């Protein structure tokens, strides 16, 4: 029986294993050094905040793996010998494979800051980081202040985690406005204000220069690059992005760049070796996507796709329309299609922006300046229907048509106050249109 070995028990590796099992009878082994069982990395914050226990983050009960004949192996892979098709495991063991999938995810970026390896300095990616945080920041007497370096999605989650335990947080963000490499100005500014309203000491356009230690080798303070200011703190969170976790491949023949180089079939340069998830790097970007996409959904979609190839139906990885979501403290965010921030915004992309007066809801819709084709939407504080926008993007709707059917796109819970009327009025004012909301339900539109 063919032996499929998957390194990494994250969403990509596990999705792949599940789908291979559905399609075939192959022997499957998943190796991970991080945890016995698959857990949802995205839920780590909720464990620290006391919303859930770690067990709750495991999407499958323990019997699931045995029942589906997916062998789990807790071990660290030190090296891969692709000639003899064997893995070198820690503690001197080895394992032979017929097909190998690298799904090792990411690790937090460290940019060579002085003091970046001190006690009390940590990323927020692995389960061990969570345990570390619990150790160094259990409450605000042990951790009097934490400094977070890097204003991305994980940074703001870490800030929310610490704030939930009443730990004062200073949040250093290199950009001039939070996450404005991705978000358009209005949205980014709204999130800035939201962060401040949670009593987080947000420092924009601020870089870390160095981390200083006390006599025991523990974090004592950080120094700000721009001002030389010293901020005393007990914990430093490094959340300046992630990069593929592939150092252990250096000695192998597998081609790597920033990540494991793969073609559209998710194959590496070596036969029978594949890579998926955060650690995979496309030779060429697909559409507007980046060559490395460190998001949950990408890992899952790659897993779904590669299972076909492994089971004899060789197909390309062809993701559909881009979508994503996040939550900034109390504000939920969803995006469908492409809405660019200032950086990297194509010339043809025009924006319509609406913001609610309560400063916690806003919507940005991108469309083609010349053709008026709808390109994408960012929505904050209002839930929208994935299926609606997926169809709209496929059918290349005119933005005016999208606006009239906005009610059908709403996915907020029942009885919520709806804002579509407001939105379309603002749109009419901005664009000189005279559109009116349609009452047709979304299913009927596409019927």
């Amino acid at each position, binding site marked *: 029986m063919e032996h499929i070995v998957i390194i990494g028990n994250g969403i990509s590796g596990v999705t792949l294993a599940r789908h291979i099992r559905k399609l075939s009878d192959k022997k499957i082994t998943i190796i991970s050094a991080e945890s016995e069982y698959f857990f949802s990395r995205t839920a780590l914050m909720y464990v620290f905040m006391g919303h859930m226990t770690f067990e709750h983050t495991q*999407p499958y009960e323990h019997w699931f793996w045995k029942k589906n004949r997916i062998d789990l192996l807790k071990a660290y892979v030190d090296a891969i010998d692709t000639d003899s098709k064997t893995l070198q495991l820690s503690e001197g063991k080895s394992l032979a494979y017929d097909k190998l999938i690298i799904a090792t995810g990411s690790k937090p970026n460290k940019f060579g800051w002085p003091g970046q390896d001190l006690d009390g300095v940590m990323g927020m990616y692995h389960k061990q980081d969570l345990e570390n945080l619990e150790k160094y920041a259990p409450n605000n007497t042990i951790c009097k202040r934490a400094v977070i370096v890097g204003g991305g999605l994980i940074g703001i989650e870490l800030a929310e985690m610490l704030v939930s335990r009443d730990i004062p947080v200073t949040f250093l963000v290199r950009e001039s406005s939070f996450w404005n490499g991705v978000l358009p100005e209005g949205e980014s500014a709204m999130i800035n204000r939201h962060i401040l309203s949670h009593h987080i000491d947000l420092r924009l356009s601020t870089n870390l220069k160095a981390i200083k230690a006390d006599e025991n080798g523990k974090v004592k303070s950080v120094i700000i690059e721009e001002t030389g200011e010293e901020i005393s703190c007990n914990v430093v969170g490094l959340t300046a992005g992630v990069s593929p976790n592939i150092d252990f491949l250096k000695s192998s023949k597998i081609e790597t760049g920033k990540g494991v180089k793969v073609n559209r079939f998710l194959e590496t340069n070596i036969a029978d070796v594949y890579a998926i998830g955060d650690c995979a790097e496309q030779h060429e970007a697909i559409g507007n996507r980046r060559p490395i996409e460190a998001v949950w959904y990408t890992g899952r979609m790659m897993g779904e796709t590669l299972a076909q190839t492994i089971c004899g139906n060789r197909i390309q990885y062809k993701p559909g329309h881009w979508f994503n979501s996040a939550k900034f403290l*109390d504000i939920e965010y969803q995006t469908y299609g492409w809405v660019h921030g200032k950086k990297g915004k194509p010339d043809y992309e025009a924006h319509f922006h609406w913001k609610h007066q309560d400063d916690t809801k806003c919507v940005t819709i991108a469309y083609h300046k010349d053709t008026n084709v709808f390109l994408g939407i960012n929505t904050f504080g209002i839930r929208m229907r994935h299926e609606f926008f997926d169809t709209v993007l496929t059918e290349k709707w005119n933005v005016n048509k999208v606006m009239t059917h906005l009610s059908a796109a709403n996915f907020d819970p029942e009885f919520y106050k709806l804002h579509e009327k407001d939105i379309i009025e603002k749109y009419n004012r901005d664009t000189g249109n005279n559109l009116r909301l349609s009452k047709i339900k979304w*299913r009927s539109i596409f019927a």
Partner: protein
Amino acid sequence: MKLIKYTGLVIFLIGLAIFTGSIFTGSFSLSPTEIDQYIDEKGYKSEIIADALKKNIATDEALNIFEFSSRVRQAFKHSNDHYDNLIATYDAEKNWDKKGEQYQYKIYGKPHTLSYDLAKRAGSGFVKDNPALMWWLTFGLSIIGALLYILPNVILLGAPGIKNNGIYHKSATNRGWIAWLVLLYLVGFYILLYFKADYVVNWTFILDPISKALNGGEASQWFVYGFLYCVIMTVMAVRMYIKYRHNKYQILRTTSVLFFQIVFAFLIPEIMTSLNMPGYDFKNAFPLDYDFFFEWNIKSLTESGAIGLFILVWGTILTLIIVPLMVYFFGKRWYCSWVCGCGGLAETLGDPYRQHSDKSLNAWKLERWVIHSVLVISVLMTIVTLYCYFSGAESFLGINSQWIKDTYSFLIGAWFAGVIGTGFYPIFGNRVWCRFGCPLAAYLGLVQRFKSRFRITTNGGQCISCGNCSTYCEMGIDVRAYAQKGENIVRSSCVGCGICSAVCPRGVLKLENDNTAGRINPTEVLLGNDVDLMDLVNQK
């Protein structure tokens, strides 16, 4: 703010302590004349009960309720034992006539109920003499304290949004010692209420004035329970309003259950009683209202003229037509989390414990076995009862009508719905009864699963498998298992509380009523991936 909160907690605990402590106060005795009067009223024929009671409780001693209860029960036992002995003797002598005569002297009824009746008349003391003051010291202090504890959350919780911080760090909500204490208290409360009502007769004195104002009569232990139920729900509804103030679905739903509890379950039946009508809760549908078709109820209804007849017809239509029709249009939520009293308590008092429901597959299996068994048994019981009622027989299909009714009332009605159902909130979650025991829920669930427009729609591929939805589903549904596959949630047990949707950080879940086509949509590859792959895999 924190100071106000903790002051509130202390005041609440003082109120609760006085309430609990009041059980032990007062003295209980009756004069010989009063005892004679009582026996007369009840029409007891026993020739020795009067003396036995006089000897035991016509005394100058200050008996507390426990001593009093024990002496009363002794007296009744003494009388019954006496006649049982005679029966045995005549039986041995084969003197059938004499033996038969003795039965009329026996006194039937549960010992603690007999004792409760007497205690209600025999009580005196501070509580009985000062009901208004006592009301303020017990209900009053507890309500004020609880509100002081809850209201600061408007500010302490910060901006509106999901605030589940620390739930798994706190002893009260993480099955710690506080949770166990609460469990003990609740279980104790229910056992006293259901089985030893005489011990808590002092509580009824506190509410006598209110009861008289509402229905003209003195308060019974059930009046106390009903009143307490409304008070607790109201206070805990305030907590819900604050906690979910960003979520209109939660606010409306909470208002709705509160309204139905106070008006339908409490006020209307009381007012009906005061008008000499049978007190009836118009929303309490059979088979949750399991004694609706019991002889005594049918008899009382048929003897109550037009209103009785109306209730009989309404009750039947409610169960056979209104309930399933509404479930078809709106799902079982219209009842379970918008109307029902049990649901109402679960959604208010029980909300802090919702995360304790067991999400395992085994629990789901157990749930289906148990709840459907209860449904079958309750229907069987009703068939037997009705058959016996119309035919005059004592049993049907080999089942004794009285036996099955008594057993059901004891095991399901009292133990399952009350002691376990509510008492175990802090450890097993707030919907143990609704999930495992309620026959009405089983019935609604079957309709919801197979013929309804209701579903929880999963928003394409947006789920990140975080598990908040499953953790906070009070019915123990593994919501995530569906959401992470992009599949709608169509489950018979879902009561549509909407909390899974509320806690989801990615906006994945929406409760809605829509066409039945495509309601159940098993998916393997989620929206957002290659459309051809989706077609290939999902069409299979």
